[in-house]
């Protein structure tokens, strides 16, 4: 149930109100398995969710990433450790993406 809430609640919230958007993926692990990855939307949602679906505070020191391909389809989403110097950005963002749009 927690995974469903991440998909149903967190993913739309991050896509609609990102704190940062990057374009151009440099790491193979971020790529779309069926095509070409394109953008990464970042943000810290209001809640995280336990496996039973109950809400809790977001995980400290982590940021939520939603990856969108070149057909504008979200294909992957997950929590990632945040950068030390900016909690709204994923660790290693400088090398991970080609450019920052927002």
């Amino acid at each position: 149930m927690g995974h469903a809430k991440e998909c149903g609640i967190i993913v739309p919230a991050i896509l609609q109100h990102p704190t940062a958007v990057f374009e151009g993926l440099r790491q193979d692990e971020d790529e779309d398995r069926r095509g070409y990855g394109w953008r990464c939307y970042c943000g810290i949602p209001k809640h995280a969710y336990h496996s039973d679906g109950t809400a809790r505070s977001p995980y400290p020191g982590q940021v939520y990433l939603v990856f969108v391909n070149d057909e504008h389809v979200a294909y992957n989403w997950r929590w990632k450790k945040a950068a030390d110097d900016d909690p709204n950005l994923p660790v290693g963002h400088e090398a991970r993406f080609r450019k920052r749009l927002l």
Partner: protein
Amino acid sequence: MSAIANDEFAKRMMLLAQPAEQFKPTATYDPDGDCIEFLAKPDAFFAERVDDLVTVYYSQETGEVIGSLIKDVSAFCRDMFERFPGFRIEIQAGRVSLQHIFLARLWTERFARDDLTTLTYRKLIEVSGETPIEGELSCV
């Protein structure tokens, strides 16, 4: 394709979910992506890449290894067939256990015994247990 409101989208996602207590470990081969995704628990997780084959999932609740994503499965199997023809014996009717894939990786790479990568693979072997992989591998 039509747009739907956030609440309606969330409701539809909830309908697709199963209660956590009904969760069973799953490993699914995705032929389009040529990858195997394994989840042993329904916990929220964060992902860390181990090497070019495996990304491991850690539980947000406990920090334990609870799953993995294995990429480029066909290429890995082909490489294994060339280097170790006996590996083919482990694949029957397009099916192979996760344990064998993790073990094969350990045996073919020069990881130190106490290397973090080695320990992660050992944990994955332990956690994956007898979980069968749904779907037929295309590399066979």
